[in-house]
């Protein structure tokens, strides 16, 4: 594969992309886990959906961009790009899928590998997903060296009462809250101001 192959600039963009796949697969709840273990030199990203899953024969060719069940075009790139990104950094991509139950995609990277793309703006990824997919719930957890942050839109929806997660003003404030929480995680500060 040539090195000027298409690349996503941020891992958060890969996450956005793979999550959209899960939604297309008919899931109504998506779990996103990011685990940064700087001491162990490992970064792990897990994306799980409760969609319709994939049949076994599809799984064999999961990284082949020319095998796709989509109908809009004949090439499927999302997982192939993520697999390439992981393998470039001495990592792996694993996909587990059960028809009728859902699919789990897990990518690992060597954290300090020179080719590892930055995680990027996870707050924008999460809130873009929330606003663009009003009927879908998201559970997001992000761990950095044992400290973690989590968000569950099912809980948020019950707490927010009359306010809606499709309100852009809510989304704006939510984005800022997540951003400062993640910044606090990365710098090791416990408290954050929403």
């Amino acid at each position, binding site marked *: 594969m040539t090195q000027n192959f298409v690349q996503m600039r941020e891992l958060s963009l890969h996450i956005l*992309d793979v999550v*959209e796949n899960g939604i297309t697969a008919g899931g109504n709840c998506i779990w996103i886990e990011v685990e940064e273990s700087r001491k162990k030199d490992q970064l792990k990203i897990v994306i799980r959906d409760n969609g319709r899953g994939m049949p076994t024969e599809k799984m064999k060719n999961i990284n082949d961009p020319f095998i796709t069940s989509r109908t*809009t*075009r004949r090439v*499927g790139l999302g997982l192939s790009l993520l697999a390439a990104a992981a393998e470039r950094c001495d990592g792996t991509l694993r996909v587990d899928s059960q028809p009728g139950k859902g699919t789990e995609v897990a990518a690992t990277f060597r954290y300090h590998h020179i080719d590892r793309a930055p995680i990027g703006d996870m707050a924008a990824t999460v809130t*873009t997903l929330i606003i663009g997919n009003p009927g879908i719930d998201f559970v997001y957890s992000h761990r950095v060296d044992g400290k973690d942050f989590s968000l569950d839109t099912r809980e948020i929806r019950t707490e927010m009462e009359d*306010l809606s997660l499709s309100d*852009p*003003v*809510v989304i704006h404030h939510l984005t800022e809250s997540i951003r400062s929480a993640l910044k606090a995680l990365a710098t090791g500060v416990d408290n954050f101001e929403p």
Partner: protein
Amino acid sequence: MAKLTIDDLKKIKEKTAKETSLRDGPASIKITVHMGTCGIAAGARDVMSALMEEMAAADRQDIRVVASGCMGMCSSEPNVTIETESSEPIVYQLMDSNKMRQVFKRHVLLGEVQSDFALAKM
């Protein structure tokens, strides 16, 4: 464990309540940001973020935003489709955050189609 707590949500709610009135009623304008692999790689998330900011500033209750997949025209991504009651859907191509702001202010709010950025009428 850091978590988005009830207090945080209350703070968001207070801030939000000051800035908006209750949003109900039917949507008369639909904005679709196409977010397939191709769109995301070309910058669709930045387009969506800019759109969110403009939406928050405009405080209009009749505009709905949705994300959708690839339309099959990957080379013209990021694509954005605007559907209003008064005209046929317009697909914009090669969008970025500035173009999105312009399209929102002129087309969505004022009804002036920005044909320089348009790919097609549907």
